[in-house]
């Protein structure tokens, strides 16, 4: 797999010529709260980078330090090759799309978008052309005269985007820019954001607590937890090879089964079942561990080398797929079966099944106390 070599945490030394943003051991403390804790990070030029994590984990704080709205308590921040640690926001070639959009309510849409250009001394026709170009890019031509209050949420969001993009910044920071939109609009804006990033080709740093959003949009995701980066990598890497239980459960559903390492590539579960895992995944671990399998990787039939017997406890139809919950010797296991055929298919509650999955679909994380609720 091409995945392994791409991920690298801790001090990033490689690829300095393409690293657009670099955080070196950045810490931010508010009185007694450590909001960001010794984070190092490199973000490639032109990439779509997502910061993902639960509420309060320090995503916004990290972004604000990049933008210059907060000063780090420790560490340094580089944009390109320049150390910008002490620089005020208006001296950084970075623009931000705020969660609440922060459109200037007293200015027209045109003037909102023109704001940054005007501050940099642009005037007259070039300015006008540039702003209109940008309003076209975000599919809002002709609305320049309105005030922000007269636009819908989705439109406001696009104005915020245009206002930031029009300055052709080196980096665009987005703090949960879709948080306030409803599901449908959100999906639509996700596509649009992605399209725009493709078009303009600048670096996007996108903060979100929605793993689906992060996975569909980003090239690289950093999963944060309690001020630290738990894992950094591409979406599939994080999804398929989560390194911690936190990452595993934060990115979609997963079945985590307690067990103990029992030799090369084998984990013995609590009920004695042996599960084969990729040798690399277990690498060096001994003692209690947990093995994880994504619900969609499990077949409701024998056939793969890992197997468990169980009884269907619950079945629910969710359109694209049907979700089964099977009671097994090591606890309940969730399985998704895609509804490739018409009508409710196959098994019903009470049926006995054999669940099977391949060792390659299995990952291993440190054993944890149950984390429920």
């Amino acid at each position, binding site marked *: 797999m091409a995945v392994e070599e791409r991920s690298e945490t801790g001090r990033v030394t490689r690829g300095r010529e393409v690293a657009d943003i670099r955080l070196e051991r950045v810490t931010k403390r508010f009185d007694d709260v450590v909001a960001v804790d010794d984070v190092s990070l490199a973000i490639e030029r032109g990439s779509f980078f997502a910061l993902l994590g639960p509420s309060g984990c320090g995503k916004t704080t990290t972004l604000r330090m990049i933008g210059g709205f907060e000063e780090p308590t420790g560490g340094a921040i580089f944009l390109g090759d320049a150390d910008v640690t002490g620089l*005020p926001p*208006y001296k950084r070639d970075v*623009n*931000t799309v705020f969660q*609440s959009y*922060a459109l*200037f309510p007293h200015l027209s849409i045109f003037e909102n978008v023109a*704001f940054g250009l005007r*501050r940099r001394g642009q005037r007259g026709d070039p300015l006008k052309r540039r702003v209109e170009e940008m309003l076209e890019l975000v599919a809002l031509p002709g609305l320049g005269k309105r005030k922000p209050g007269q636009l819908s949420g989705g439109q406001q969001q696009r104005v915020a985007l245009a206002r930031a993009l029009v300055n052709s910044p080196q980096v665009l920071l987005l703090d949960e820019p879709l948080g306030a939109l409803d599901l449908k609009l959100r999906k639509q804006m996700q596509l649009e954001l992605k399209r725009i990033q493709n078009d303009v080709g600048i670096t996007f740093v996108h903060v979100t607590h929605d793993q689906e959003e992060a996975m569909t949009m980003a090239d690289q995701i950093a999963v944060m937890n309690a001020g630290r980066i738990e894992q950094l990598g591409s979406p599939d890497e994080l999804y398929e090879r989560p390194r911690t239980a936190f990452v595993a459960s934060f990115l979609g559903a997963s079945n985590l089964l307690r067990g103990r390492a029992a030799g090369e590539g084998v984990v013995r579960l609590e009920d004695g079942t042996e599960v084969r895992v990729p040798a690399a995944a277990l690498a060096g671990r001994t003692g209690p561990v947990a093995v994880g399998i994504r619900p969609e990787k499990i077949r409701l039939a024998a056939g793969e080398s890992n197997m468990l017997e169980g009884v269907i406890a619950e079945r629910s139809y969710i359109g694209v797929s049907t979700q089964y919950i099977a009671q097994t010797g090591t606890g309940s296991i969730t399985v998704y079966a895609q509804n490739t055929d018409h009508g409710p298919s196959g098994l019903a509650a009470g049926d006995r099944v054999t669940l099977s999955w391949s060792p390659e679909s299995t990952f291993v994380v440190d054993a944890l106390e149950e984390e429920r609720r």
Partner: protein
Amino acid sequence: MSIAAEQLPAPRRFDLSARAVAAARHHLLTLFAILALVYLLLPIAVVVAFSFNDPVGRFNFTWGSFTLDNWANPFGFPDLRGAVVLSLEIAALSSIAATILGTLIALALVRYHFRGRGATNLLIFLPMASPEIVMGSSLLTLFLNYSIPLGFATILIAHIMFNISYVVVTVRARLAGHDRHLEEAAMDLFATPWATFYRVTLPLIAPGVLAAGLLAFALSVDDFVITYLVSGSDQTFPLFVWGAARVAVPPQINVIGTMVFAAALVLMFLNIAFQWRRSPKGAA
């Protein structure tokens, strides 16, 4: 499924007596509210009415006959003009000064985190919670102790003092409604702190500042107790009224009172209309 058909006003049943009681209660409240409004506005009606009175003799509180003379000649009473002018001067200066000082405090309170918030809030609150007579008398003792001559300056000092708190509270209410990130957005868009202030902060708070300024102006024009204590030989309009009240209130006082009232009403109306225009949905 939904059958397109005419709306059949289906027979609706309701508890008649319950409705009657509800209706009565509904209107009882309305009646009470209207009476309360009458109570509030009755004296104003009297003030306005008596501004058109041609009093019999010196005293303007029994109805003589209707006249426009008082309005034709609103300052036709010795010293009234001077008092009104002084009131307006003091109000203008004190409201401007208090608005500036108070707005700065409000900005700090809303936009910054700092130690001593609690103490600051308290210091803002106390003047509003002190009886005027105490503020006036304490200022007077200060001035007496330092033999500061009473007059224009001391009135101005006092008015600025009691207006600051009201400005802070008004502007703060206005500021609190705005996104804290607006200034950051401006800075993000390459606006220097100064540009941020006058391109974003100032326009945003302008209505609040204006409202605060008007409030301060109104409070200043209306103040009697504190002014009475610290005015020395200068006479503002309320002091003039006080003096006149002990002798004979000329109808011109009603004229001025009515004018002030009308001006304030017009301003308030403009303010409401302005807010309506800004938020087309009419939610003020």
